């Protein structure tokens, strides 16, 4: 068994410290563990897929290969197309679900 923990790769400290629900599944989709990103899980060697869910429903994915006796950290980050350049946008969109504000040219 190996201990696996999770790290969320957000820009904002509010989101990084958030405890998100996490599912760990085998490649055949069998659910192995349900926990929080602030917790760790013990896994048998093998390949697993990790999914975390944001309050607004977006999901963060990653894949991990667990080796016997080696602990590891799975980094979970938004898909590149879902990323925001500024942390203040992250909080609005990932926590409250507010749409991006309309940007207008300032003349």
């Amino acid at each position, binding site marked *: 068994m190996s201990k696996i923990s999770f790290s969320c790769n957000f820009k904002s400290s509010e989101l990084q410290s958030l405890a998100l629900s996490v599912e760990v599944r085998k490649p*055949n*989709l*069998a659910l192995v563990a349900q926990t929080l990103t602030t917790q760790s899980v013990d896994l048998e060697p093998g390949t697993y897929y990790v999914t975390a869910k944001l309050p607004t429903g977006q999901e963060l994915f990653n894949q991990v290969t667990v080796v016997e006796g080696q602990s590891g950290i799975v980094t979970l980050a938004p898909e590149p197309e879902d990323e925001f350049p500024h942390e203040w946008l992250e909080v609005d969109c990932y926590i409250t679900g507010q749409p991006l504000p309309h940007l207008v040219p300032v003349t």
Partner: protein
Amino acid sequence: MTPGFDNRANLQGQPDLHVLIAGVSTYQNLPKQNDPLTPESFGMRQLSSTALTKYKIYRWLLDHQQNFPVPLATCRLLLSPSPDEVAVEPGLKGLAEPCTLNNFLVAANDWRTDASSHQENVTFFYFAGHGVQRTKDDSVLLLEDFDGRIGGLLRNAVDTNNIFKGMAKSNTYPNMAQTQLYFIDACRDFLSAFKNFEPESTTPVFRVQLSGEDKRTAPIFYAAAPGTKVIGIKGGQTLFSRALLDCLNGDAGELKEVNGQERWHISVHSLNAALETKIDDWNKTLGAQQDFILGGLVANTPTHFLDLTPLVEIVLEVVPLDALNCTRIKVLDDQGVPIPEPVPFPVLPNLHPYRCKWIAGFYTISAEIDPPDQRYINFPGRARPVMPPSPVMRK
């Protein structure tokens, strides 16, 4: 009354499954679909889809009887179909006794007796027909001979709570089934006829004993939230039952260890979650406002097993649409093996968004611009779970 399906003789002493299905479309004392309402009909007419719904549930149960945790022993069916439903499904004609009060009382009491033979028994109850509410939390089921003219208004009606409570373990029924599934596919709105009177009484189906602990798993899946109606497709089936059958056929599937073995199965929790998703989908598709609410005593337990890994409906959408002609979608399975032409290239505009069904699993879906076009960029895929109930994906 003999059950329509009866395998008790072959299952002596074993835990088993006992089913009671009741569906009413034709009400003796309510106007037909296009006839004018009467003061005694309280805004209700005969229905067009509920008996057919019950028939489909009945057929599904018979066809999947090997998939339950315990074997099917009895299936009692009471149906009052409409002529339209018989025209659509001739198998309905003469299949079952009509769903009158007396028939319902006899069938329900026999069902309870069978259910109480073993604590590991499982029961399945499904009602579809008119339903009303007297209080914010009850659910009254109107039977075929509902009659607003003579005696108490709800004399030929029964209360879901009475059925539920009467099926609890008690001194008389110490071995009552401890897994019970209830599906109430009926409206739960208030009748204006109630407002000027003391609460009307239904006919009790069971005398409810106060003795005995009640630790059963007994979820009640209501097709309607309090104060709302159920939606049916004329001559078809109710939206709830359609969503339910989709879920039972795999859209509520989950793979977890059961008794030390990984098995695809439907559980109370997975069914609850999938029904919410499916009904939301139907509401969006049809512009309907069908509700769904879970009540009763809820604990998670497998309800039945799936023979195969379920198929999942996928919706692939190219954004922006202008890139449709030059977007080639590539898909790898969890072993990295390409799926041959998962989506035709180019996707014809009339097929977009592209819908298909894949076996549940992990897939890496990427989009390649072919030929390269500087206005668009390739979309590299990452492995994502494709699992019930039917996720919507955009690329």
